[in-house]
């Protein structure tokens, strides 16, 4: 450091005759640092920050690594017990088996059946719940109808009641209307359970949009649905993505509802996975189990990767405006 300062000083001295006459007010000030402040690469601070980040990342990535590595090994190699070692001989056999031929009870068609069940459950539940909740949120935030506050309070309370409390009553209700054990019953349950939190989400987002936009649209003559479809929805892409992610991951990962409200032929992927992994007879096929688990988790992961950027933006936009 002192070396550099010294160098500069001599430099200045060399050009002194020209500059001294013009830089009158500068005389008397000691020459010192100039320009951008130098950054040190290896300070205590950076070591601690990056060290902590690295440890945290490793903590979360290691299990994933073990799963992937194990799923690519054959059973003989797994029995050697080196769970961290990369596979000597890469095989996709466990993945194929997990997808199409692993047995759960009497069915031996793997996870594929559960995958399609989950798709049939998740897509309509997500679409219907978001459609209804967004209109709810819009009505609650922009059209102050009579009893709006009471309705909203009830809805919010609903968001905090544990699912377990409601399972038995819902079983009875579904039985009485003849939907118990069917896919439709489960779709209805998911739609209803998603409603409080989604309505809250949409209401707060819409409340954060400038009220004057809504007023301007009313002066322009747009009605309830006109304002919703032409003004509100186009402005709310981020919150729709957030709601989509919440619903897709929530419904896809659901186990409890799936196992309670459906019959074995309609079991969603998570229940199917549990049945494969927890099957008591025969050899524990760790590689198949690992592959099956990754396959089941793939859909929410994919949703995160594709829309993660929008997810963050949606949450942040809500935070700033709220």
């Amino acid at each position: 450091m002192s070396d550099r300062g010294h160098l500069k000083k001599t430099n200045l001295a060399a050009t002194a005759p020209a500059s001294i006459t013009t830089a009158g007010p500068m005389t008397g000030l000691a020459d010192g640092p100039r320009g951008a402040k130098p950054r040190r690469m290896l300070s205590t601070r950076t070591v601690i920050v990056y060290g902590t980040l690295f440890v945290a990342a490793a903590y979360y990535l290691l299990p994933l690594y073990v799963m992937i590595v194990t799923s690519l090994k054959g059973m003989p190699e797994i029995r050697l017990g080196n769970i961290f070692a990369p596979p000597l001989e890469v095989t996709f056999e466990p993945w194929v088996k997990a997808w199409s031929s692993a047995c759960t009870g009497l069915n031996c068609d793997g996870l594929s059946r559960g995958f399609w069940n989950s798709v049939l459950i998740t897509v309509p539940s997500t679409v219907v719940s978001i459609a209804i909740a967004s209109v709810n949120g819009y009505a609650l935030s922009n059209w102050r109808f009579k009893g709006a506050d009471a309705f909203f309070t009830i809805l919010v309370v609903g968001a905090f009641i544990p699912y377990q409390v409601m399972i038995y009553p819902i079983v009875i209700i579904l039985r009485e209307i003849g939907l118990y054990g069917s896919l439709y019953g489960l779709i209805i349950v998911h739609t209803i359970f998603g409603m409080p939190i989604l309505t809250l989400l949409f209401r707060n987002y819409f409340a954060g949009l400038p009220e004057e936009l809504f007023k301007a649209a009313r002066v322009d003559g747009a009605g309830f649905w006109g304002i919703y479809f032409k003004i509100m929805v186009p402005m709310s892409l981020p919150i729709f993505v957030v709601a989509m992610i919440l619903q897709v991951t929530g419904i896809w990962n659901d186990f409890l509802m799936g196992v309670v409200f459906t019959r074995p032929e309609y079991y969603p992927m998570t229940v199917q996975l549990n049945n494969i992994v927890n099957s008591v007879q025969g050899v524990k096929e760790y590689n198949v189990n690992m592959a099956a688990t990754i396959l089941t988790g793939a859909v929410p992961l994919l949703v995160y990767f594709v829309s993660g950027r929008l997810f963050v933006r949606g949450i942040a936009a809500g935070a700033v405006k709220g």
Partner: protein
Amino acid sequence: MTSVSVKDLRLSFGQVTVLDQLNLDIQEGEFLVLLGSSGCGKSTLLNCIAGLLDITDGQIFINGRNVTWDEPKDRGIGMVFQSYALYPQMTVEKNLSFGLKVAKLPQAEIDKRVKRAAEILQIGPLLKRKPSELSGGQRQRVAIGRALVRDVDVFLFDEPLSNLDAKLRSELRVEIKRLHQSLKNTMIYVTHDQIEALTLADRIAIMKGGVIQQLADPNTIYNAPKNMFVAGFIGSPSMNFLKGEIAAAVDGKPVFVAEGVTFSLDGYRTGEPLLPGRRVVLGVRPEHVKVDEPGVAAAERHEAVVDIEEPMGADNLLWLKNAGHTMAVRTAGSRRFSPGTKVRLSFDMSLASLFDAATEERI
């Protein structure tokens, strides 16, 4: 002919009454400014006229038609908002034509009206842009355009210039005035800025606590304020208020007496007799105080000391101390006074205001 008429308007939210027994008649082609500080009910009143708030009681007429129960779109109004309220996902052109499309006008008519509005407001080159690509002034122009294309009789402005910086504000102010002069529509304009009110208005309604304090042309509002609130609200710096009482001078003419000062009320014009002993407040605007004026009788002069001098270019603002009172005085910018200077003041009583100390109403 009356363009907008508000009769016995009352608006309550639950137990809270925001506007009560409010009456207001606006002539055709008039530029009326609703002026007041925030929370005085001026924007609320405008929203009631627009139909964006459901009123509790009373009636609203626009162009002789009772529109009390009508939707905003059916009232024949166009509205401009403070935050511009442009639809962010639409281009300027779509923003302008949205209301017309909703009203299912033929495309040729829509194009004609958009083109005309764009010409009047000089936003033709911006038609294909999104609002996010416009400056604040351009956005507000588009917002005015959106009211313009509706081809309505009454324009409502809700603090349209408050979000703009000072330079743009004065530019657009002139443009709004020009627009009014060429269109001759009725305009109701809400603002808290007294300069906007004084420069734009044919008449100003000053509001406080949901009540119209005074409704008059800018000149009357400025020179003959009806009460102390109006007097203090309009003018910058505020009118000087001196508390005192009326006394009878030796010659029997009324004088104003306050702590250490006595002013003759000879030139003050009023219909009421100025009875001695009445507690009053004398109000004098800073520019109506003369400093070291030659040819003023010694009895009419009062000594004061310059406390602070604020040169403002064209004017020079002096803060004076006079027997316990502080007083603002405006002099020509060319006259300079250093702090501590003793000056002699004289008032032009014909331009002063006298208020009753108890009711705060003008005498």
